C-alpha cells in the first residue's frame, strides 16, 4: 500500500504509536533522555542572527554591484563607437587594476555607462591615511573592497595590511572570519573560503562569532622562514587542504597520519574555521590514541580560543572525563 493509498483509509485515532512490544524498550530509552543544561543564551543568538543577516546583505550588495558592473560592461562593449575611458576605481588592487579590465567586487560603485556623466558618480570611498593595503610579494594578486575609511573586505589573494597610528582600528572582513587591526603589519591571505592571517608586528584581534575579541600572536618567525625548513610541498597549503588530508588519512585508517595533519592545521591556521573543528577532532583522536595529556591540551586550547562557543559545556565534560592530569603542550611535528 502506498502512502497515497493509505491516506484514503480511515485511521483509528487511538492507535498506539508502537505496535511491536520488542521495540518498546528502545523507545522508552529515547523518551528517558533527560534535558541537559542549555549553554546558549539569547544575546549569543541575537548576535549570530545579526551577523548572518549582515553577511547576507553584504553578499547581496556585492551581487548587485557585480550585476550592475556586468550590465555596464555590456553597454561599453556593445557601443564600440564610444571608446571607454578608464574607469576610476575606488578600491582597485595595485596588481589587478592596471591589467584586468573585467569588473570585480573590488569596485563598490557601479561602472558608469558611457551615457552616465562622471559628475553623478558617488564619491569614492577612501581608506584613512594611516592605513595601506598592498600586494604581498609574489603571492596571488589581492582583491578587496573598501567599505569605509576603517573597514575593508578581502575577497582573495595575499594582502599586506599596514595600520600606523590610525584614529580607530581597521576592521577586515574575510570569508572565514573578521579581524580588527589596531596597529602594525598583518598579512591576510584569502583562498576560497579560507583566510590565513599572520600578524607580523603590532596588535590584531580576531572578532569571534559573538562579537568578542581574541588577540592573535605575532608570527614574525614565519615571515621569511629558511628555505631548508620550508619544503616546497608545504607552500600554498591551506587550512582546508590540511583538513581534507586529515580526513583522507582517517578514511584510510591511518589515525596517526590524521593527527599529524590536524596538528599542522591547528598550528598553522589557528584562526580558520577548519581549525575550530579540527581542534576537537584532534583531541578525540589523541584521546583514542592514548595521548591523554595532549588531548587535554587540545580541549583546553579549544576553550582558550573559543570561550563562548556553544559546545563549551561538552568540551568541559570531555576534559573532566580525561581525569586529573596536566597539559604539557601540543606537540607540533
Amino acid at each position: 500500500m502506498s502512502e497515497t493509498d493509505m491516506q484514503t483509509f480511515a485511521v483509528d485515532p487511538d492507535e498506539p504509536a508502537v505496535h511491536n512490544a520488542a521495540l518498546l524498550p528502545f523507545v522508552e530509552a529515547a523518551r528517558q533522555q533527560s534535558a541537559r543544561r542549555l549553554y546558549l543564551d539569547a544575546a549569543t543568538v541575537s548576535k549570530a542572527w545579526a551577523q548572518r543577516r549582515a553577511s547576507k546583505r553584504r553578499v547581496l550588495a556585492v551581487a548587485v554591484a557585480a550585476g550592475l558592473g556586468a550590465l555596464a560592461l555590456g553597454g561599453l562593449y556593445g557601443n564600440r563607437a564610444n571608446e571607454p575611458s578608464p574607469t576610476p576605481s575606488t578600491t582597485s588592487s595595485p596588481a589587478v587594476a592596471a591589467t584586468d579590465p573585467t569588473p570585480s567586487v573590488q569596485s563598490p560603485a557601479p561602472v558608469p555607462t558611457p551615457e552616465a556623466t562622471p559628475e553623478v558618480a558617488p564619491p569614492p570611498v577612501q581608506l584613512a591615511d594611516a592605513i595601506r593595503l598592498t600586494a604581498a610579494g609574489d603571492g596571488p594578486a589581492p582583491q578587496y573592497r573598501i567599505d569605509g575609511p576603517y573597514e575593508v573586505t578581502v575577497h582573495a589573494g595575499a594582502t599586506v595590511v599596514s595600520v600606523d597610528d590610525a584614529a580607530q582600528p581597521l576592521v577586515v572582513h574575510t570569508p572565514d572570519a573578521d579581524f580588527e587591526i589596531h596597529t602594525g603589519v598583518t598579512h591576510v591571505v584569502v583562498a576560497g573560503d579560507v583566510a590565513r592571517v599572520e600578524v607580523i608586528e603590532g596588535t590584531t584581534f580576531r572578532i569571534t562569532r559573538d562579537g568578542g575579541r581574541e588577540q592573535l600572536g605575532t608570527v614574525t618567525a614565519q615571515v621569511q622562514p629558511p628555505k631548508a625548513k620550508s619544503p616546497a610541498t608545504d607552500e600554498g597549503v591551506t587550512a582546508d587542504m590540511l583538513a581534507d588530508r586529515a580526513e583522507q588519512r582517517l578514511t584510510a585508517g591511518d589515525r596517526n597520519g590524521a593527527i599529524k595533519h590536524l596538528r599542522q592545521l591547528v598550528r598553522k591556521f589557528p584562526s580558520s574555521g577548519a581549525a575550530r573543528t579540527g581542534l576537537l577532532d584532534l583531541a578525540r583522536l589523541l584521546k583514542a590514541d592514548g595521548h591523554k595529556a595532549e588531548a587535554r591540551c587540545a580541549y583546553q586550547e579549544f576553550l582558550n580560543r573559543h570561550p563562548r562557543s556553544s559546545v563549551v559545556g561538552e568540551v568541559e565534560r570531555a576534559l573532566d572525563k580525561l581525569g586529573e592530569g596536566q597539559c604539557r603542550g601540543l606537540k607540533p611535528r
Partner: protein
Amino acid sequence: MMAAALAHVGDMDARSVLVAARRGDASAQAAVFDAHKHQVAARILKMTGDAASVDDLVQEVFIAAFSALGSFRGEAQLDTWLYRITVNKVRNWWDAQRRRRRRESDPVMTRAEAPVTPEEQTQTAEHRARLYAALAELPGKYREAFVARAIENMTLAEASEALGVPVSTVSFRTRKAEALLCAALGLEVEPGK
C-alpha cells in the same frame, strides 16, 4: 521576565513582540528565545539523541525563526511553527551526520565519542544508541513521524498538526518507520503485524 510575559500577554502584545523580534530588537528576541528555548532543546534532543548538538541546533532554529518571523501569519501557534523549523533543521543535521559517517568509516572515532560513565553503560544507553543509529538510516519523513508519535508521545492529531500532514499519513509513516526499525534492530515482527 519578558519571557514569562510573552507566554501570558494578549495576542496584540505577543504580536508586537514578534514584530520587534523580527526587526532585531534584542529584548524581544530574548523574550521569544527564553519562552521557547527549553522546549526546542528538549525536542532536538529527542529528535537527534545527541546532546552535543543541541546548543548548535537551538541556535540555528532561532536564527531561522527570527529571519522568517515575517512569514509567521499566526494561523498556527508559534510553538507549532517553531516545531516545523526544528524538524527542518534536524533533517539537515541528519543528512550531514550521514555524510560525515560515510567519510569517517573509522570505528575508533565512534568509540572515542561513546559515553563512558557507568550510568551511560546501562542497557538503556545501549538501546538508545542502537535506536538512533537505526533512525539515522530511515528516510526523513518516516523518522520524523516516528519521533513525533513514539518518542515525543504525540497523539495522531498532534503529530498531524506539528508535521503539517494528514493524520492518515502520520499513521502510515509511523508504521512504516516501525517496520524498518524492527528490521534494522533485528527484532522479530509480531504475528499479524
